């Protein structure tokens, strides 16, 4: 998975946001001193290689009315966590689903699923749906609501 300096520059430029002009890739190409074809080809290659997940509009969930985001966390036996994670990740209200390490004794949870809803009740219902899906595989869970966004920036990388 090797990317070079030009790939990094293209990622940086496109992460900041494509310009809202008729030929946005040309604008980025001009800034980098390369051709628009190169920009598009490399973006396409990086998607194929699994470096770029997607190219598109990045919604602001909070502004769109999804004011309640809950980080639901679950304690799943290690031998089942992949199977369970795949199933939870398929739920349409789950935006991210990750396996992370436990830190015993203070942190027993190894599966994280981010849910979004317009109401606090909605988050509770989503948590309940996940709990029902997990059944006896769920050895314990919690939900952490966000109270305040203290810093939020797009991913930045060096050149």
């Amino acid at each position, binding site marked *: 998975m090797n990317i070079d300096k030009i790939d990094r520059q293209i990622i940086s430029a496109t992460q900041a946001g494509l310009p809202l002009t008729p030929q946005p890739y040309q604008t980025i190409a001009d800034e980098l001193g390369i051709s628009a074809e190169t920009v598009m080809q490399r973006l396409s290659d990086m998607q194929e290689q699994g470096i770029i997940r997607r190219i598109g509009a990045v919604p602001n*969930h909070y502004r*769109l009315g999804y004011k309640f985001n809950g980080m639901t966390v679950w304690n799943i036996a290690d031998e089942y966590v992949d199977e369970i994670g795949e199933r939870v990740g398929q739920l349409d209200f789950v935006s991210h689903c990750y*396996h*992370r390490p436990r830190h015993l004794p203070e942190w027993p949870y190894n599966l994280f699923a981010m849910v979004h809803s317009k109401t606090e009740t909605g988050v509770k219902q989503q948590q309940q749906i996940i709990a029902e899906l997990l059944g006896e595989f769920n050895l314990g869970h919690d939900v952490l609501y966000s109270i305040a966004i203290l810093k939020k920036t797009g991913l*930045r990388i060096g050149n």
Partner: protein
Amino acid sequence: MLTPMHKQLLNDYQQDFPLSPTPYKDIALSLGITEDEVLLAFNELANEQFISRIGSIIVPNHIGVSTLVAMAIPNEQLQIVADIVSHYPEVNHNYERENRFNLWFVLIAKDDEDLQSVIEAIEIESGFKAMQLPLLEDYFINLGFEMDFDD
């Protein structure tokens, strides 16, 4: 307010934004509207902050290394520690959450050595332990998050 066109653009173009010389024109053609209408609608979505940008989304941990970090901070010191943490350019998201672990942030660095040195610096400067929760597996299925605009 969101118009039907805004909603369609939001739901249809979270992924597969055209990789062509004139992407907005391509979108316009597929929706049967003009390029100017598409550009105007995206401008409105951006200006009203319904979208943060049209851009590329990177798969975690392919470029540099990152980890989620949680800290348990007494309430009266939370703002001070949050400011210390946010000050580091390696810190990407920083949220206050309702839990004993009340400060949650994502750190990104070029390699693990850099990452550990930033965490160490944060622990020393704040006086609190940082719990590292790096991603072990990403159960990524959904492409984009389906918006419910019915209510």
